[in-house]
């Protein structure tokens, strides 16, 4: 066991997977000599050479489109998009090609690409270095969407994504790239895609979160405990395919649901979780489902810390749901 940050866990997962499987190749902007703007690929160019750690021209559609072609030919490309906010020139490639190769060819082709992108707020980066647009990808059939929240899960989930036969959008919470440290085994392990995790058991409220917000959820749960409210915190970890059974069993246990994400509320992934709970477990609910989310504004600069849900706001929601 060593203590790693989230970004170090990314680096370790990539290094191990590249050693294990010579089909794994990295490509993206500034990922080679520079090691990526967040240093996620630091040292990998020296270790694996320029044909497996490829600096590319500045064009996301070129990066993702080329990666898809490489995957069709049998490689396992792991492109890095510098910020999720920059992915949109490549969005056409993701929606039109990546997600549909298997389906549109009747299973003849599949494009096994893992797109890594730092996402989310908390670095004072304004709209274009802060957004959480995971719902776009979750809404596209054929993609898997994974968001880790700890160094341990980052390594295990990224390895699982690289070994998964389907295309994966792997979103890395950049606010906690270095802020969260944790024990990570040096040996090989995977965290299965499609499984959520009960991070803290509780009996009064189910609080579902992922990425950076998982830590906000834990902080709020601690606060609630001081007031004798027992919050169950569940790390969603995989948005698609969602671990629906775990979601429903927690709801059946607590009967109260809070969903927490930093993405804007309207049309966010919380709406999907909420709808599924309504369809499958309405009779267990003791109170309306509450979503705590980013506001329906573009991501602001000055008031970032207020825009982003924090333990204070989650606590208000916990009080509200308990008083219903």
């Amino acid at each position, binding site marked *: 066991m060593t203590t790693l940050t989230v970004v170090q866990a990314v680096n370790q997962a990539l290094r191990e997977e590249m050693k294990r499987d010579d089909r794994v190749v990295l490509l993206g902007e500034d990922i080679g000599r520079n090691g990526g703007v967040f240093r996620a690929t630091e040292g990998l160019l020296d270790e694996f050479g320029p044909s497996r750690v490829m600096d590319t021209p500045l064009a996301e559609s*070129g990066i993702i*489109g*080329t990666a898809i*072609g*490489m995957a*069709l030919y049998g490689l396992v490309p792991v492109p890095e998009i510098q910020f999720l906010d920059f992915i949109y020139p490549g969005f056409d490639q993701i929606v039109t090609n990546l997600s549909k190769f*298997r389906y549109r060819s*009747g299973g003849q082709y599949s494009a096994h690409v893992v797109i890594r992108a730092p996402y989310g707020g908390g670095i004072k980066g304004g709209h274009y270095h802060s957004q959480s647009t995971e719902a776009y990808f979750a809404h596209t059939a054929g993609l898997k969407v994974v968001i880790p929240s700890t160094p341990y899960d980052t390594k295990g989930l990224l390895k699982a994504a690289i070994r998964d036969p389907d295309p994966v959008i792997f979103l890395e919470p950049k606010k906690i790239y270095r802020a969260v440290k944790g024990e990570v085994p040096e040996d090989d392990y995977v965290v299965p895609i499609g499984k959520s995790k009960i991070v803290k058991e509780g009996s009064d409220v189910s609080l579902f979160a992922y990425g950076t917000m998982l830590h906000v959820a834990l902080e709020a749960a601690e606060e609630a405990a001081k007031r004798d409210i027992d919050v169950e915190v569940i790390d969603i970890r995989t948005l698609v395919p969602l671990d*629906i059974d775990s979601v429903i069993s927690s709801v059946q246990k607590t009967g109260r649901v809070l969903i927490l994400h930093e993405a804007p509320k309207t049309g966010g992934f919380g709406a999907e979780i909420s709808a599924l709970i309504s369809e499958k477990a309405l009779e267990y609910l003791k109170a309306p489902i509450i979503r705590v989310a980013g506001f329906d504004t573009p991501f602001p600069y000055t008031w970032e810390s207020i825009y982003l849900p924090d333990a204070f706001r989650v606590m208000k929601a916990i009080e509200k749901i308990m008083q219903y």
Partner: protein
Amino acid sequence: MSVEMLQVIRAEGTYDTTLEPSLPESDLKKLYEAMILLRTLDVRALSLQRQGRIGFYIQCIGQEASQIGSAYAFEPNDWLFPSYRDAGVAIVRGLALKTLFCHLMGNSQDVMKGHQMPNHWGYRSINLVSLAAPIGVHIPVAVGVALAAKMRGDRIVTGVYFGDGATSSNDFHAGMNFAGVFHTPTIFFCQNNQYAISLPVSKQTKAQTLASKARAYGFEGVRVDGNDVLAVYKAVKEAVVKARNGGGPTVIEAITYRIGAHSTADDPKRYRVEREVEEWRKRDPIDRFRLYLQRKGIWSEDLEAKVRQQADGIVSDAIREAEKIPPPTLETMFEDVYSEMSWNLKEQLKELLSEQRDVTKR
């Protein structure tokens, strides 16, 4: 800037012996047969669509020389990325026409399982990559395949087919730029058929030629008479050999004309005059090649009759066989989204099947 255009066979069938590719008589006959088969397929498929026996079709009439001549220049293990108008590429690769009609009908023997609309095919067994409708998106993918093959040390070439409209797309730029930077063995085969649906090429770009765009990306662009099958073959063959030997990518602009509509949902009378179409009909690529074969002493009335009869037979048999095949089951709609069916798909399929609806009407 040069606007030269490679031509081997002149309009009246005379030819330039210094440019003539050295193809044996058997290959010349094969090219002719393929062009006739493609024309026959095209005419019959359009008629089937008009009769409501297939839902949609995209014609390629007038572009036979471009498609057949180019596809013939690649090796079978080269990966080709056709666009929806390129049935000729499938014919050269030897696709059974029954297989093609099963796709056009979206029946249970459609390799795409009815997941895609007509003309949006892909056949892995013959290295034709499945295509999408948005223009240009396959261009960087073709570059990626070439890059991966190069990294693996495999001496294959990729050929990507698109029209004049695609040269304005984001992915044309991205793909060309990546191909230049990574020096990939990729042939960018542009059939300049003068129209992107209704927009003439003069309004698509201010560039004097489409081939000239290659220069900005650091490689060669060649213009060729797209209604001259030998010129197309020669230009593509040279580019393929160059790419295979590490010489990098090439753009080939084949000047041709879309005689038909953009698709069966289009009415070209809205945007172009019949006189223009008539002018191009006079430059028919099949007629031109026939005159050449005649001068070479290869063509005869008997050959013509035989080739046409053979083509009619192949197409009629294919249609008859394909029309016997029932539609796919509802289950297939849920297949191939992921490598394994996810819980929500299973749930939706189960619910659909429980409705017990009448599925005889589609």
